[in-house]
């Protein structure tokens, strides 16, 4: 269990920093087509701001913002978006990740459809990397007992 750590300077700084980090993460994601970046890097930045929230506040504060069950769903959702884009190309008559075929459902020409197909899979990678980094961090930092830790903290909170 993470110790209670109350520091007004760090907490206020994190309140200001985290929205900028999340915006920067989305910038890295959508700008990955024309500059260094992409799903993996953006996902790590997005996970870093949740880790910063845990470090500055508490595990329970972070969990109240982003529920454990939703996080597990996001883990699979990212990989599903990637594989689903591949399968959509397959069902539209192309090869597995041949994004040019997406022009049949997107209002663009095949070359621009490849661009949007890549944007789609990068989004999937971002979601998967973010959720899994957060999940691994939560498991490691509490030795896997975070559900119990969460309950204990809730009891303490009601007694206080």
């Amino acid at each position: 269990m993470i110790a209670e750590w109350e520091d007004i300077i760090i907490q206020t700084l994190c309140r200001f920093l985290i929205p900028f980090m999340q915006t920067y993460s989305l910038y890295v994601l959508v700008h990955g087509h024309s500059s260094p970046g992409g799903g993996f890097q953006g996902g790590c930045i997005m996970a870093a701001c949740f880790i910063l929230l845990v470090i500055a506040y508490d595990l329970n504060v972070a969990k109240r913002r982003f529920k454990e069950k939703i996080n597990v769903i996001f883990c699979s959702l990212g990989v599903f978006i990637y594989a689903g884009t591949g399968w959509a190309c397959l069902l539209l008559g192309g090869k597995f990740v041949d994004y040019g075929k997406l022009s049949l459902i997107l209002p663009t020409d095949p070359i621009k459809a490849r661009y949007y197909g890549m944007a789609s899979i990068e989004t999937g990678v971002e979601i998967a990397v973010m959720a899994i980094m957060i999940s691994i961090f939560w498991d490691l930092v509490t030795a896997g007992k975070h559900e119990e830790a969460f309950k204990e903290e809730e009891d303490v909170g009601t007694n206080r």
Partner: protein
Amino acid sequence: MIKKAISIIIAIFAAAALLEGVRAFPKWADPYQPASLHVSPRYIEKTVEETAVPNMVTSVLADYRGYDTMFETSVIFTAGISVMMLLRRRPK
């Protein structure tokens, strides 16, 4: 003690074998090395007209090698699931 000596000797021989292999490498930044002649020119010339992406790295990562990247994501997914399975305890 003897085990340590044997492992040091094996390490030296392995390093020698690897360094011998280095001599067969192409020269540094040689434009006619095999790696630069096979598929790189096609990526460099055709990326923008085939994929409309100005960044070559992204087009190789996500389009030409999209299958590879999908399984990189799957590897991360597997790592997350493995950590969950190994470390997570159910509350009783």
